[in-house]
């Protein structure tokens, strides 16, 4: 761990009964970089995401986070209020299913503005204006600001979730299969959007995906997991073009070439 990593995990272990989900996992994330965790179902990648973001506790190991003031905090030793506050401000979490992180009965503007209001925003006009600005950033027509998400397509819902997450300018965003369940063309557009936003805003991200193409497009570095073990890690292009570990080679070779 160097002096400027944003997030560092050491020695994470977690078993569900007899099944190993995390086996001695280490991970580092630097500011502004995107780290992809790839693997098949059961590899432990989603568990790792949950442990890194404090949503699930490891049985052993530690996750350190460096706050904007430069202080290190043990994520799993934080008090619940502090962790929740972190998730509402400096951190973001994009769920695979946008419905898990949106209020379907609240307008798009209300969804995006909620975090601002939670942080003390009390000017309706300004909150609405900021919500509109963010809708535009995620390429949702500003005229939809007063529409309910029930009327949105899957791709739009995902973009709305992203707007809702980014409105407080988080430095670190966790993403769980953000393009899962979407049509290929919709996925492509969404990936482009994410790539642009992340680069423009200097956001660091931990991205879980089973799709190597997503990793290649978005991530600077990639970690490959198999049955709870990190089998390979490195720069994305290097790992995907020249895989060293047999499992990585298998993953890479089994991707259908378009």
């Amino acid at each position, binding site marked *: 761990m160097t002096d400027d990593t944003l997030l560092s995990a050491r020695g994470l272990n977690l078993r569900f009964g007899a099944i190993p989900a995390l086996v001695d996992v280490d991970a580092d994330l630097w500011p502004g970089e995107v780290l992809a965790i790839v693997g098949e179902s059961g590899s432990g990648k989603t568990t790792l995401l949950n442990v890194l973001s404090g949503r699930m506790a490891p049985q052993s190991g530690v996750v350190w986070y460096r706050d904007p003031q430069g202080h290190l905090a043990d994520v799993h030793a934080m008090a*619940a*209020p502090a962790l*929740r*506050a972190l998730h509402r401000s400096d951190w973001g979490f994009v769920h695979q299913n946008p419905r898990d992180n949106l*209020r379907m009965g*609240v*307008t798009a*503007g*209300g969804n995006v*503005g*909620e*975090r601002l*209001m*939670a942080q003390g*925003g*009390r*000017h*309706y*006009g300004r*909150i*609405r204006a900021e919500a509109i600005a963010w809708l535009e950033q995620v390429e949702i027509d500003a005229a939809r600001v*007063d529409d309910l998400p029930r009327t949105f397509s899957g791709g739009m819902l995902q973009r709305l979730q992203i707007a809702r997450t980014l409105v407080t300018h988080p430095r670190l965003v966790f993403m769980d299969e953000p393009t899962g369940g979407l049509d290929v063309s919709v996925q492509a557009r969404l990936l482009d959007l994410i790539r642009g936003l992340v680069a423009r805003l200097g956001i660091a991200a931990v991205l879980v995906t089973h799709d190597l193409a997503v990793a290649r497009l978005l991530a600077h570095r990639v970690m490959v997991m198999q049955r709870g073990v990190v089998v390979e890690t490195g720069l994305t292009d290097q790992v995907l073009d020249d895989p060293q570990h047999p499992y990585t080679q298998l993953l890479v070779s089994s991707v259908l070439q378009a």
Partner: protein
Amino acid sequence: MSGYNFAYLDEQTKRMIRRALLKAVAIPGHQIPFGSREMPLPYGWGTGGIQVTAAVLGPDDTLKVIDQGADDTTNAVSIRRFFARTAGVATTTHTAEATIIQTRHRIPELALREDQILVYQVPQPEPLSKLESSRAETKRMHGLAEYGLMHVKLYEDITRFGHVSISYDYPVMVAGRYLMSPSPIPAFDNPKMDMMPALQLFGAGREQRIYAIPPYTRVVSLDFDDHPFRTTRAPHACGLCGASDSYLDEVVTDDRGGRLFVCSDTDHCETRRAAGHVGAEGVAA
């Protein structure tokens, strides 16, 4: 009513309720769970208010009970009789003479004093209940002061209607920390709670919660800077006493749209009429 303790409840129970009240006063606006007892009046009909009143009532007190601002509505009559039977205390319809006022859905028009206690009957103590049905979750939200959900609701109202549509049980922030339900008083009455000299106690029997606002506490109705809280009242004068600043009841006088507006606070209206004020409709008292 032989065989019953003063004001019906046994002393242990009153002590338990007073302990809850002390905690409530120590943390303004915060809901304190209490072991609400089965009372001879149904849940939802004021058992919480009755238990609070029974716990603070003494033989020298003078009790006023109002419902919808009136002393003579049936449930106010029923509750006043209950205390007359079980406590034998003096009762009154005059706000100025009362030391304890138990109320449902209104705050008296006459400003209250430091030596008075106002006891509110509360059906639903949880201000977030319509937005979040789980009490376990709302408890967390209060603990973490996470009230974004309520602000979202106000935002949505402004988006849909141009202004906040809540007209009664309008949520307030107490002492800058706890979101509180003022009970279903009209929004018109909310400003009276702010810096009130009297002690304000709230009892919810069925939901088993007690809360309080100590005297001279800041109570602010939620709003946005550019959509400030405003009160609503029927834009008329009382037909009986001429008051133009009191909350009015709309009385239907015939089936051709005939309407008469009269003060909801019957004591306020009678006092004004006794002092010589006459409205368009009324005869001098």
